[in-house]
């Protein structure tokens, strides 16, 4: 398995990196984001202190997660929410599929939730015979294409309006259009009655408020609001790490998430949901189910060194800043969570040995750590994962290479002599390149071996 994920990554990365159209698309898409984000950040009285404050709140909630979770579910249950604790993806899927069966559902509408991608919920529901419709515009587009989201926050950022127009024309038989506005209206019209028809609405949750027993959902389009307002049953899927202590903490987190995520001061809709429709309210779902998902989060929690990776509010800022993400693209990772944060947490969620190659999908430049609004020590955690992978299963060829290196550095005279002997051989490296063993061949495929100087520095120094 390890060979498969790593080699897929390599093949895909090589291909996408050479795709200049792709690079131009991503650069164009991120340009306006960067300008808006920087403007917003400049309006803060103290952006760095705000990051630190957010990190401190997340520290507090994660290091006392048991207590905050108990508060959270007690408050939710008191107002009629049905809480389900799912240890893994299978348990979460089974619960939701069983619920759909119990409610005799036909259509299920979903607002954006990366956690549902993590547990492959759509496939499970579709296999069980239900129609599942993604309502976020970007998610709707990638669902029509049968693709995974390209980016945590911008699922369809790899597509141009022309590609989307062709897609809508093919799948929805709409008239071709060059205008993002017209394309958006096609999706709006298509989805309007889905909200009304749907028997179940499924959403994610950006935050869970322990103090009041509410989930907070951040969005721009209004699809999250419709998904949680119209269907008779609302199911929210939330990772256990999303709990924060107080309602007032949102005064900090909502603007931080928006600024880092999309370059807005605050997104268009930030909704709090604390239960099903209450008796004095005119509408809303009759039932509200909250599925709390562990799925190896507790394993990451147990790693005190990397626990802050659970601070993540899924804003996507580290992806946008990452030179690797911008070149290899979101799909290359083969993970639910792309970019630096995905490279850090995927080995914890899905196995270190299968996913350790992502620790090397980094230039260690630290741009991710710098932009992270909750101060996750991202690039250091990539190093921690490398160290842990080597410690748990040392690679004999790597060890031999480092032994050789250690040996040679101890005998500079020997290196000098070897260099002198191999100097005339360098031009032939190009000829024998195709038959060299894998790691050397790979390294040389995009590089030329430098020429060895006629005279070494040591010789030159001696003669002086």
């Amino acid at each position, binding site marked *: 398995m390890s060979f498969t994920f790593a080699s897929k990554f390599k093949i895909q990365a090589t291909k996408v990196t050479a795709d200049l159209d792709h690079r131009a698309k991503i650069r164009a898409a991120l340009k306006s984001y960067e300008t808006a984000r920087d403007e917003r950040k400049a309006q*803060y*009285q*103290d952006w760095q202190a*705000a990051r*630190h*404050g957010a990190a*401190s709140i997340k*520290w507090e909630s994660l*290091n*006392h*997660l*048991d207590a905050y*979770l108990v508060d959270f*579910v007690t408050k939710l249950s008191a107002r009629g929410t049905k*809480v389900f*604790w799912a*240890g893994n993806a299978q348990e979460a899927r089974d619960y939701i599929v069983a619920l759909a069966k119990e409610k005799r559902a036909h259509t299920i509408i979903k607002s954006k939730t990366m956690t549902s991608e993590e547990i492959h919920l759509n496939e499970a529901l579709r296999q069980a015979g239900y129609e599942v419709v993604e309502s*976020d*515009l*970007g998610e709707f*587009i990638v669902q029509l294409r049968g693709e995974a989201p390209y980016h945590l926050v*911008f699922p*369809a*950022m790899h*597509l141009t309006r022309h590609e989307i127009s062709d897609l809508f024309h093919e799948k929805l038989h709409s008239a071709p259009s060059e205008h993002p*506005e017209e394309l*958006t209206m096609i*999706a*709006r019209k298509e*989805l309007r009655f889905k*909200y*009304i028809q749907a028997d179940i609405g499924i959403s994610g949750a950006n935050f869970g408020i322990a103090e009041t027993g509410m989930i907070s959902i951040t969005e*721009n*389009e*209004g*699809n999250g*609001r419709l998904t*949680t*307002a119209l269907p008779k049953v609302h199911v929210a899927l939330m990772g*256990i790490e999303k709990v924060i202590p107080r309602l007032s*903490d*949102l005064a*900090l987190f*909502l603007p931080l998430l928006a600024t880092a995520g999309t370059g807005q*001061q*605050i997104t268009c*809709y930030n909704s*709090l*949901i*604390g239960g*099903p429709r209450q008796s004095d*309210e*005119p*509408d*809303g779902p009759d039932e509200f189910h909250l599925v*709390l998902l562990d799925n190896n989060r*507790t394993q990451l929690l*147990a790693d*005190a*060194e990397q626990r802050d990776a659970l601070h993540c509010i899924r804003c996507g800022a580290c992806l946008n800043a990452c030179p690797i993400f911008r070149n290899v693209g979101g799909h290359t990772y083969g993970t639910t969570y792309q970019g630096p944060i995905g490279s850090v947490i995927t080995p914890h969620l899905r196995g270190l040995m299968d996913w350790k190659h992502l620790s090397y999908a980094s230039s260690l430049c630290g741009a991710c750590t710098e932009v992270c609004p909750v101060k996750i020590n991202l690039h250091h955690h990539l190093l921690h994962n490398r160290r842990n992978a080597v410690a748990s299963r040392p690679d004999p060829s790597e060890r031999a290479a480092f032994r050789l290196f250690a040996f040679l550095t101890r005998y500079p005279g020997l290196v000098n002599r070897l260099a002198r002997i191999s100097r005339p051989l360098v031009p032939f490296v190009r000829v024998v390149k195709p038959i060299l063993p894998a790691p050397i061949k790979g390294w040389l495929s995009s590089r030329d071996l430098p020429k060895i100087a006629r005279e070494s520095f040591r010789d030159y120094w001696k003669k002086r």
Partner: protein
Amino acid sequence: MNEGKREAILGRIREAVRVAAPRPHEGSGRYDSNAIEVPQTSREWLPSVPLDAEGRLNLFREKCSQLRTEFRFLSGQEGAAAALADLRNKQKWTVLGSHHHPMLDPLVQSLGLETLYVEQHPQSKSLERCSVGITACDALIAQTGSILLTARSAGGRALSVLPPHHVVVASVDQLLPDLPAAFELLYEKYGDNYPSFATLITGPSRTGDIERILVLGAHGPRDLTIILLGTNA
């Protein structure tokens, strides 16, 4: 309830957090206070807000124009009725959606159109056909140009998001300075019995999912109008 899994997961969490993680910037000196009081302190970090009422009103107006929210500051009920009648004629409203509220009732009646009241539990399908949803709210927030409303204050969940135009009527004493104040208000007003739904609305529905180009009216209302009454009506 699946108590078993609950205890298993909580057990794993308790085991995991027995060793505390290093605190953010532990010992770095610069941000040494670990007992940061939020939101009291977050006010000092977030974008600043003028202290005087007029400054706040101007900031709110400015935010609305950036967000493409239509903002009308009017002196009283008659002005508001005239502004609504104007919108009715311009947009050719046919059916209204609204909820009963002392500030809304005379305005809605003055428009003389067929009106669906959410208290009569109209079907979503009928609500969707409304030209406009007219609601009250809990507060307006100058810092962000947002509207705070709840299922209890603004006629449930669908009225303010399903029709293509959302009109909010508020009085000037409902204008709050910033987000911390908005959450304080929620706590003070509903602390012992929260509604099941509250939302902060900041501008008309929007998306940038196609080439990051801004489009208004993605799934929610394309038009958002705020009518602010100068005198407490």
